[in-house]
């Protein structure tokens, strides 16, 4: 369906158009949320919120950008809000309820049944998420959109509302920061 037609039908409250939109974007939105949040349950929750927001605010979509760009922008903002909410909530949670702890427990729980290669894989993944989470917000956004979601620099710039050179610069700094963190983990693993 043409984007303009889809937007018009959504504005009219066409449920079938909304179903098609969800079908078309659910994998991309869910994948982006998972890349940003790393917890499947939380990512699913935020992805649902993204589509609710799309349905409610499609009337305000002026069509100046592509529909996909607009949806990605909503998804990125929702994920960042969730991360901020998580950080605020962290002060009121018990140590075992922290998302990092939950991720560690997810890894540790089936460790008895898993071969050592799988445990190592999970631990390595955990370290990569830690390294990505430690990046400054803009670098993280650029890295996730470009590297994990495989979007072009132009699309990343549109989603982030910035210029192409700014995205290139953010990505370069993100790569160097990530490499430094992963090098530290690598050295620790080998020592």
């Amino acid at each position, binding site marked *: 369906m043409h984007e303009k037609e889809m937007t018009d039908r959504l504005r009219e409250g066409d449920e079938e158009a909304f*179903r098609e939109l*969800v*079908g078309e974007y*659910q*994998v991309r939105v*869910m*994948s982006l949320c*998972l*890349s940003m949040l790393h917890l499947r349950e939380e990512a699913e929750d935020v*992805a*649902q*919120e993204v*589509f*609710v927001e799309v*349905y409610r605010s499609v009337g305000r979509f002026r069509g100046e950008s592509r529909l996909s760009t607009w949806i990605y922008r909503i998804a990125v903002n929702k994920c960042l809000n969730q991360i901020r909410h998580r950080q605020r909530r962290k002060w009121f949670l018990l140590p075992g309820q922290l998302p990092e702890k939950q991720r560690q427990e997810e890894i540790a729980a089936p460790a008895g049944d898993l071969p050592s290669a799988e445990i190592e*894989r999970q631990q*390595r*993944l955990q*370290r*990569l*998420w830690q390294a*990505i989470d430690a990046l400054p917000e803009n670098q993280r956004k650029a890295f996730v959109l470009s*590297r*994990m979601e495989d979007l072009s620099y132009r699309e990343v710039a549109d989603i982030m509302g910035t210029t192409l050179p700014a995205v290139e610069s953010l990505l*370069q700094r993100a*790569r*160097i920061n*990530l*490499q430094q963190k*992963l*090098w530290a983990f*690598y050295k620790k693993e080998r020592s």
Partner: protein
Amino acid sequence: MKCKQCHKELITWLEGSASQEKREAVEAHLAVCAGCREFAGYLRETLALAAAEVKVEEDPWFYTRVKARLTWKTQTTAPPARGKSSGQALAGLLQPAFFTLLLLLGIYGGIRLGGAPHRQNHPPLITEAPVPWMDEMNAEPLETFLMQ
């Protein structure tokens, strides 16, 4: 190219977005440096893991859940017909007023308690027995006691 410089370029090289000059320099260094080659392998595997981890399958029930959430949100957060109702406005005023009053009462109570004199109207729990003064004249001399 030195190891440190090579490390800086590794992710760009792995992504395939390095310039030809840098690509050749990295590859030349990796050909002679086993440590950097091993680290490049580690990076490649780790980044590939993440890409595989965020791969999502299409969920046939996702739309149903979104629709249910949308319906629930519409029902629970339906906006009032004309702005805020008078009850909500009153609650908005009363709530801070109540907490301010509570806070002032707490401060007043604290000041009163802090400044209250220590009065003891009840009888003392331990009665002090008077210590008798030693009367040396009436006391039996030690020598007399030993002689007996």
